[in-house]
């Protein structure tokens, strides 16, 4: 948010907060145990707003569900901001003391009246008004989001639009008030923490900062490239332009997980050299020149960092099968093969080296992680108890450090526009019992499994002349696939949904668009224009 990337709050705070906003998050299915904490909050009297095009199982718990059009989040957020300002419900003291850029922001949202918001989002103005008033008036409030906000071509702007609201109302930096991006994978947070970002070193230290880089170089005994690398969408571009010809993929299945999979296959097959290190022979690995069998979860030691910035130990319970080896062992072996005298470190040794270099993690020894059941960063030294919530400094008077900036952001609809030819908005997402491309979750037998289907509103089913179970052709501007239809009453006419879990059967990313956010590199998985045609039965 303001520097280090991570949720500001701890789960326990949502149990005691007064208002919960779930924005583009179906946590009931995607983060079930986080949702337990949400439900404790609800049972303790918290009111809940859910903003989601679909009336998801999360939305069914809401006091108010706002069923916006896909990709209209900024219009909604700006209208909420304008309403708060026009009703003089903003937190003036906080704005004056801890933020900057308010006047520009106020001017920027001025055009977003409730009426305009209704026009753009499709949600009645009174519901938008209610959201604005309740969020502003709540003593404490938690604003949570997930991929419904970030899988857009303007993901960063979406996030900034929400952060503006937290700054406007002072709902950040206090116990019970904060903003929480929920992490989709076990260690997305930890990957970022460790510098698996094109522009960061471990602990969110800027790679282009000479001083920071020098510190790492001294300990690593090697030179660190002084320029930020490419995020995934830039890599795609470089592959398209022939600048990137060799790729080493560890634990990813991009052939199936990236938008526009036809394009992706072309890119991967055009490479000169592809190495894939994974626990299974995934479809991506099948394209590789070299496959390195990795030990998986349950077979290795290390740490994960959760969505509340809590670093916890992961441990080996069983031996890896066959020739599979720990990632750390494989990487060291590759280094040795390249002529570097690396000794394979233990997970703890690698961790301890990182602790010297990342102030956020400095105090997190394995012994402490063990004893305390994990620690939340920042935890700079071994006497530090970890940090329950971030940005408390914004409530110090005068504040320490820099002021938190407002950002003016504008409504920017999905790239893949709806037309007569492609009249239905397809959005994608996850279901409770499955996970991403199904590499892991496909291997247990779930009585709740919904296979690759196209979810439609019953009304659309009628107008298309299809019944549940009928196969249809789904076509976007990039590709076409066939899938059976399932009726879902949580969808309104004109809105369709597909999960991403069964690429082998129904490869939804044949349809999706790789329009991507210039700052984060995320593609617009959430907004595809499609048409649906019944298959003539054979």
């Amino acid at each position, binding site marked *: 948010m303001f520097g280090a990337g991570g949720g500001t709050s701890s789960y326990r705070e949502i149990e005691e907060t007064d208002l919960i906003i779930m924005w583009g998050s179906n946590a*009931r299915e995607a983060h079930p145990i986080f949702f337990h904490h949400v439900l404790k909050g*609800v049972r303790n*009297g918290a*009111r*809940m707003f859910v903003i989601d095009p679909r*009336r998801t*199982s*999360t*939305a*069914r*718990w*809401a*006091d*108010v*569900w*706002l*069923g916006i059009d896909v990709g209209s989040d900024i219009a909604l957020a700006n209208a909420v901001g304008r309403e708060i300002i026009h009703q003089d419900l903003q937190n003036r003291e906080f704005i004056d003391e801890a933020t900057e850029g308010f006047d520009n922001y106020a001017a920027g949202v001025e055009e977003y009246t409730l009426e305009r918001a209704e026009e753009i989002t*499709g*949600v*009645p103005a009174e*519901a938008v008004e209610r959201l604005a008033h309740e969020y502003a008036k709540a003593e404490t409030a938690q604003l949570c989001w997930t991929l419904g906000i970030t899988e857009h071509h303007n993901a960063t702007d979406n996030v900034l639009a929400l952060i503006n609201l937290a700054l406007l109302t002072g709902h950040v930096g206090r116990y019970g008030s904060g903003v929480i991006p929920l992490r989709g994978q076990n260690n997305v947070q930890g990957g970022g923490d460790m510098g698996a970002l094109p522009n960061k070193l471990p602990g969110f230290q800027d790679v282009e900062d000479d001083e920071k880089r020098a510190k790492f170089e001294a300990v690593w005994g090697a030179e660190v490239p002084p320029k930020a690398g490419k995020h995934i969408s830039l890599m795609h571009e470089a592959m398209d332009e022939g600048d990137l010809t060799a790729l080493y993929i560890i634990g990813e299945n991009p052939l199936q997980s990236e938008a526009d999979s036809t394009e992706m296959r072309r890119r991967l097959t055009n490479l000169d050299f592809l190495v894939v290190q994974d626990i299974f022979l995934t479809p991506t690995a099948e394209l590789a020149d070299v496959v390195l069998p990795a030990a998986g979860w349950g077979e290795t030691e290390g740490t994960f960092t959760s969505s509340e910035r809590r670093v916890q130990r992961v441990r080996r319970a069983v031996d890896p099968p066959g020739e599979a080896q720990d990632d750390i062992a494989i990487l060291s072996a590759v280094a040795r093969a390249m002529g570097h005298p690396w000794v394979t470190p233990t997970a703890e040794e690698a961790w301890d080296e990182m602790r010297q270099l990342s102030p956020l993690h400095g105090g997190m020894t394995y012994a402490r992680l063990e004893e305390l059941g994990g620690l939340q960063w920042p935890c700079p030294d071994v006497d530090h108890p970890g940090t329950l919530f971030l940005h408390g400094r914004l409530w110090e008077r005068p504040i320490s450090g820099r002021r938190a900036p407002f950002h003016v952001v504008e409504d920017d609809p999905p790239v893949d526009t709806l037309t007569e030819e492609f009249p239905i908005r397809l959005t994608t997402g996850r279901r409770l019992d499955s996970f991403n491309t199904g590499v892991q979750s496909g291997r247990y037998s779930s009585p709740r499994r919904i296979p690759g289907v196209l979810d439609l*509103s019953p009304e659309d089913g009628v107008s298309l002349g299809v019944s549940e179970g009928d196969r249809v052709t789904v076509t976007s501007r990039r590709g076409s696939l066939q899938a059976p239809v399932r009726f879902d*009453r949580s969808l*309104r*006419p004109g809105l369709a949904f597909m999960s991403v879990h069964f690429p082998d059967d129904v490869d939804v990313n044949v349809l999706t668009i790789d329009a991507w956010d210039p700052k984060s590199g995320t593609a617009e998985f959430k907004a595809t224009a499609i048409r649906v045609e019944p298959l003539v039965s054979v």
Partner: protein
Amino acid sequence: MDLRALLDRPTEAERMAVDDLLGPSEPFDGRVAYGGHEARGQRQMLLPALHAVQDAVGSVSRGALGYISDRLTVPPAEAYGVATFYSLFNTDQPGRTTIHVCDDIVCSQYGAEDLIQALEGSELSWERSPCLGQCERAPAVMFHHPGQGYGNAAPVDSDAVGNAVFDELPPSVVHQDQSQLRLLRRIGRVDPASLQAYRESGGYEALTSAIELGPDGVISALDESGLKGRGGAAFPIGIKWRGVADAPGRDKYVIANGDESEPGTFKDRLLMEGDPFAVVEAMTIFGYATGSTKGYIYVRGEYPTAEKRLGEAIVMATDAGLLGTDVAGAGFEFDLEVRRGAGAYICGEETALFASIEGYRGEPRQKPPFPTQHGVFGKPTGINNIETLLATLEVIAGGAGEFARVGTEQSTGPKLFCVSGAVEKPGVFEVPFGTTLGEILALAGGVRGGLGLSAVLLGGAAGVFVDSGSLDMPLTFEDTQAAGATLGSGAVIVFDENCDFGPVLRRIARFFRDESCGQCVPCRIGTVRQSETLARLGDGETLGTVADELERLDDLARVMTDASICGLGQTAASAIQSAIRLRLRGAPA
């Protein structure tokens, strides 16, 4: 909530029955939905909604239950758990005319088994029922014609039952002279369907006095009167009302406990059927004195006439400005609602009754916290039974001193007793506290057929047997307690010298087995083991010696009394143990 709907759809009749109660359902908007706390707050309409479909079609089908769950945001599994808790909801067969035959302690002495024999070969749908509260005219049945409603018939014969054709039930009569009556003075004499007749017979004088006294004055008068609750626990009413009045918070409730289900007890039915405005007036004063703006009258499901009369009385009182936002022009708000039980003795227990109003299974809660702090919907709640409420009218209208002059020092005022069984003139009798058991039996014409007395069951199934040695016992809270007996519900069930108590005790054991809510182990399993043990003794197939069986019964009695959550389990062995102690004929020995 993210409920998963049952696949079945309701029939048109089921949907209409529910929509008539709840209003039409709103279609999915697609853009906005309001739910959450407000939607979940509709849970308390669950029993009324289940009644609506049961009344209309005679059963609660999958489709109906699914529709109700959806409308009220109640999980289907919980709705099913509630529907199967209450014996009057039929979840396992298509609805049709059903006859509930009372085979309980009193009716079984009046030929209940003959009625059952007449039904056993027939095509009719019928069930055995615990006491229907019609004991003065046993044997009794309750019948239900789907779409037409419930009715009671008593006394009935095999022909009527076998053909399912019943006469209209005449109003209950009071055998005593009008001059002896306060609580019963309007029964059978004043038109219960007329507010005017009620007012002309002194109705609403108590409310006028109450408003003059003010809330605190009302409670002080109750303190002075020495009035104690008539429901069994004999708790001082002034203290209870003050507890609610003084409890912090704005939302408070008052409840009239009309779930009179103790076998052999029917006085509250007479009052609710015969003097419904008095119940409404007393509740209004209860609300006024405690600062509660909402009251419920919980009427047992087997009392359709009482429910109807009370409902009509509430409408008339509301129309007359005696309920509503400005009661009697005195500037206070009070509304009343009738809630129907659905066949569960346990709901007479106050915390189970709260659960039932809230739309849950009638499972009692551990006390403390007590209702005056944490009652229905978790709010401070005052709850009294019907007879107690009518007694408060006497205190307010007639004066606390006048009231306290009746009865004894510790048991003040008039008291109702329900005399049934082997007497000449069964019925409800109003006497001053302190009247002896013998005097009450004499009022009822003595033992039927000039036979001798073997025993009296005081307080119903949860009570204790006494024999002729207790005829001189004054019926007061203090005297019965000293004698190890109880007044309980005011039931006085009389058995003549020819009675074989074996079947009586087995029926009592079955009553508790059937009526246990199933929550706590001592009661859930203990009542079964008690019933099994008595069955073995009755069949002469004892496990070990009779002494072993008696030891088992004693162990079961102790654990149920000591360790059950509520009064049901705690008294489930009381009558049986007293019969053993008195060595009644046919009791295990």
